[in-house]
């Protein structure tokens, strides 16, 4: 077995076993931490398709995280107030059903990614970074100044949304939902990276000319990748909002975009399980260093700097060596 495969198994095993242990030991807070890891990993898995495979440095993925969050917030707030979302031309009611919310989150963030991608992918390099950042700021300021859904204060949901047959208020059951969704996304991501599409996308990152000369439209490749990427990050946003029972414009902030990139980078860019390793490391640092010092982000800053300057493969790259990750 390759070392990376082994490491991936260890990471996923730990992510599954720690909350199970916490469940037996009655430590709900640990389960919540693990749930956070699973959800943030999912956001990273989404970004990794654009960033890791496509080489698209999006500093605007908070848009999709936020759209997913607000999809949940808006639907659930209408449901808890018993006020319809829309009365004419046809009636749309709010909902407290997770599957419906997920579907809405995925579809709306995919649509947003399609439009934003179609506009942004006309540029490249640093301009692409900046235009995605600008779109993120648009959403951020829009939610701050739009009073209908809480404006700057955000929206609170009193009771977590439901999933048929499960008690989502039980931390371990909600964790299970998130873990299953993460696993599905990882499976999909692994299939995509080995598919003809994945091959073409990664090749376009290395040599756009090559892809064009074999008759593949690199713009379309990237647009599709960006859309899939946004959809997955959007799903993570809906789950994140459900975990906190709260959404606010912070989900759209550029720091959120930066953090999602950090998950991917800390873990190892382009590595299938990189976002999981990175998000786990991030949450562990936040938890333990945050307990030691109020200023734990100084250490995070130095760690990130060290990874960028000296350990470019991230956690997985450092532990598993420089094998070719995508075969």
């Amino acid at each position, binding site marked *: 077995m390759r070392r990376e495969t082994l490491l991936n198994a260890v990471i996923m095993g730990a992510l599954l076993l720690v909350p199970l242990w916490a469940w037996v030991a009655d430590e709900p807070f640990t389960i919540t931490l693990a749930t956070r890891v699973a959800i943030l990993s999912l956001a990273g898995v989404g970004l990794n398709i654009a960033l890791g495979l496509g080489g698209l440095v999006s500093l605007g993925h908070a848009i999709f995280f936020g759209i997913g969050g607000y999809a949940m917030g808006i639907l659930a707030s209408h449901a808890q107030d018993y006020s319809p979302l829309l009365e004419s031309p046809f009636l749309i009611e709010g909902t407290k059903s997770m599957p419906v919310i997920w579907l809405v989150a995925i579809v709306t963030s995919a649509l947003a990614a399609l439009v934003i991608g179609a506009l942004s992918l006309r540029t490249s390099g640093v301009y692409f970074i900046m235009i995605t950042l600008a779109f993120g700021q648009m959403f951020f300021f829009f939610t701050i100044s739009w009073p209908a859904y809480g404006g700057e204060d955000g929206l609170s949901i009193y009771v977590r949304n439901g999933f048929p047959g499960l008690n989502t208020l039980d931390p371990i059951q909600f964790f299970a939902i998130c873990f299953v969704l993460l696993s599905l996304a990882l499976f999909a991501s692994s299939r995509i990276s080995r598919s003809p*599409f994945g091959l073409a996308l990664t090749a376009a990152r290395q*040599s756009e000319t090559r892809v*064009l*000369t074999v*008759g593949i439209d690199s713009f379309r490749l990237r647009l599709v990748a960006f859309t899939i990427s946004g959809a997955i990050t959007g799903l993570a946003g809906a789950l994140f909002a459900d975990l906190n029972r709260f959404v606010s414009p912070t989900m759209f902030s550029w720091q959120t975009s930066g953090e999602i990139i950090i998950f991917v980078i800390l873990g190892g860019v382009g590595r299938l399980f990189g976002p999981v390793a990175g998000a786990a490391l991030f949450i562990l640092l936040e938890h333990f260093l945050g307990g030691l010092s109020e200023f734990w982000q100084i250490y995070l800053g130095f760690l990130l700097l060290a990874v960028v300057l000296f350990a470019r493969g991230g956690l997985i790259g450092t532990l598993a060596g420089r094998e*070719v990750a995508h075969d």
Partner: protein
Amino acid sequence: MTEPVLETRNLTKRFGALTASDGVSLDLRAGEIHALIGPNGAGKSTLIAQIAGSLAPDEGSVLFNGEDVTRLDTVARARRGLGRTFQISALAMEHTVLQNALLGAVGATGRAFRFFRPVLKDTALLARATEALARVGLQDLAARQTAELSHGQRRQLEVAVALTLKPRAFLMDEPMAGLGAGGSKRLTTFLGELRREAPILLVEHDMDAVFALADRISVLVYGRLIATGTVDEIRADREVRRAYLGEDA
């Protein structure tokens, strides 16, 4: 006479005061190798770029299989069967040799938007890619990372990727460069046979190869085509001798 496979008519491209292509009209006929030669800075790369579709001409047109493709981009021309190799290798360096060949197969079969089935499990793609690699003699290096290939092997891979497209015409920009004597000879033999599958527009500095291979030669000087003809005609052409040798013959 049959219609040429590839044809440029009065192709003109200016960069400011410089006219990089000056009313170039040339054609590539079925079964031939047509070599394009000229001193450095003659505008060969500019011309190739316009034929391939990566650069839009100011005037004139490009016809491929009788169709006016002047307004089509690189992707569309590749899909119509224009296979191109580059002077400076354009390959996915982090990928393996096989993956690069597979990329060509993916493009040729229009399967780039398949998301689920691993590319290595698609036997049709694999067959196409391995066949192309075998034809250029790279089959044993299939699992090697492209960045580890020598300069010459990269050239071979460029040709292999173009082969996966099963093109109707080849556009080759200095495929011999950096090959060394042995490699150059092998590729010469190979291209000699390849012309029967599809004609080749060959830009090449290696004059031995050009004179050994070419059915016809066109000479480009300062963006202008000064002569087109058989090897013997070009050898005897006074204007060519003057441009190349500075002779006042």
